């Protein structure tokens, strides 16, 4: 129960910030919408008309996944860095609730609330392009749930690095494009992609939303690989974070500025 309260508190914090910085939130929505629109018009007028529909849908889902990954995996890196500099990180570490759980709650809250925002953007885009994606909740909910765990795993890795290396901004700039590649590349391209985080998750979500592949159509193998990948990255992320945390406590880095 008290862990639920931690999640609740973080949902409230993220919501408060989204509302308080409404101009930021709105400009983010407009930016993403504009990017979609550009892609959409580009595909429609320059691309091959026979594949335009598929391309548009591919692009829509990929972009949503990219922003979601950025939020989850990169956002936490920025937050850790600023909170360590500000001093709030130490205050979080004074809680009897383990800090990793608080961070988990923060990432979860960020992802969930952003999903709501993206749903709004998606509706706008679908209305504009009259390309209606499929929303089979029975398939999408478990897909998102498992994918989010994997994303949070990577988020923990970034957070761990941020604890130790205060100058990870440069790394994060480059990571944006690595994340884009991860969400854009189809899983079928190479078996080695199973080892990369988020690739399978993104591919499956895309298939579900564009081609209407359902929960049962994917087959047990796909679900197993997806879960295994998410589980491994979540555990690995947590392990790396805990290691970084110990190191930061040894070096006195939690509150350094």
């Amino acid at each position, binding site marked *: 129960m008290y862990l639920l309260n*931690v999640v609740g508190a973080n949902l*409230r914090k993220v919501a408060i910030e989204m509302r308080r910085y409404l101009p930021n939130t709105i400009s983010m929505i407009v930016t993403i919408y504009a990017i979609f629109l550009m892609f959409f018009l580009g595909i429609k007028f320059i691309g091959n008309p026979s594949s335009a529909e598929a391309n548009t849908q591919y692009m829509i889902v990929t972009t949503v996944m990219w922003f979601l990954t950025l939020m989850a995996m990169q956002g936490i890196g920025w937050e850790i860095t600023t909170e360590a500099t500000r*001093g709030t990180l130490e205050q979080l570490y004074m809680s009897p609730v383990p800090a990793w759980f608080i961070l988990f709650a923060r990432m979860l809250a960020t992802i969930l609330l952003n999903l709501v925002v993206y749903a709004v953007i998606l509706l706008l885009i679908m209305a504009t392009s009259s390309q209606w994606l499929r929303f089979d909740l029975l398939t999408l909910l478990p897909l998102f749930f498992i994918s989010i765990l994997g994303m949070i795993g990577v988020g923990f890795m970034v957070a761990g690095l941020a604890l130790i290396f205060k100058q990870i901004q440069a790394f994060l700039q480059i990571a944006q494009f690595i994340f884009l590649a991860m969400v854009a590349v189809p899983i079928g391209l190479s078996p080695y992609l199973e080892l990369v985080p988020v690739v399978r998750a993104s591919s499956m979500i895309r298939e579900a939303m564009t081609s209407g592949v359902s929960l049962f159509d994917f087959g047990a193998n796909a679900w197993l690989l997806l879960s295994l990948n998410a589980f491994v990255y979540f555990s690995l992320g947590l392990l790396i974070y805990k290691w970084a945390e110990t190191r930061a*406590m040894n070096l006195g880095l*939690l509150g350094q500025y």
Partner: protein
Amino acid sequence: MSTLIELEAISKIYKKRGGKEKVAAVTDLSFEIARGEIVGLLGPNGAGKTTTIKMICGLIRPDEGHVFVNSFDIVRERQKALRSISAVLEGNRNLYWRMTVQENLEYFAGNRGHSARSVRSEINRLIEQFRLESKRHELVNNLSRGMQQKLAIAVAMLAGTEAVLLDEPTLGLDVETGYEVRELLRAIAQEGRTVIISTHDMPVVQDLCERTVIISSGRVLVDDRVSSLMKLFETKAYSVSLAKPLSQMQVTRLKATFAVLSFADDYKSFTVTLEHDEAIYTLMDILRLERTPVEALDRTSIHFEQVFRQLVNGQVKNHQMRESNHVLA
């Protein structure tokens, strides 16, 4: 009284990033704090106060030694130990500047696992006690430094822990706010909580603390009751006023012979502690060297500030220190 916090021979050496340079911030530090005690942790800049406090909180791990909080090892059983302590570390830096007063309180309570509803009345009580009502919905960013400091203390209070650690709670506050914070700390102390305050603010120590642990270069220099230290110096403190300034030679002699508390800028008066009754004749002998006329010789009251400076400058004669320990026993 049972022990709540126990430091067992802790040491911390920082390695400067990039370089090979090492800083021994804390060396073989041991002391205990009993339940309900109000302790002032003092020491000159860089003495290792902040490092010590953060090691008690488990935010920094000691290289050697152990810290026990409520008999839980802060490193090995951190989560259990943290149920008994909260901290105000960098004061105003420990808050979310983009959230309001109430939101900060709710968020930190939430991260301890409390629902907003369950802490509502306690938050209201604290907001009232800390006189933050008018700022309840104000962003922390827009508060004065003193208000921010009060909120940071309120956040620690909301945790409801047995012990509170405060690192420089009055740093950077104007006299009035400093006084207000001091009164709040007094109220907290009277609630029966254990309070550890690291500070340079001597009136805070003189007013609030029962005991002081003075550290210097990461080691315990003095660990004694504030009243004993005050008494020790007070009974022997004299102020001497002269009709003409002391000569350089007299100043040197005085410094060599006595624990001189302070000289006036014009060297026409000074305060001195006399270790035994006979010492007054030695003092007179030094004044006689230049036939310096004495205008007045009085017992004087001293401030803890002077005691502290004496102790840190190491000008206290060894037997005085022994005597001080005797007073404690």
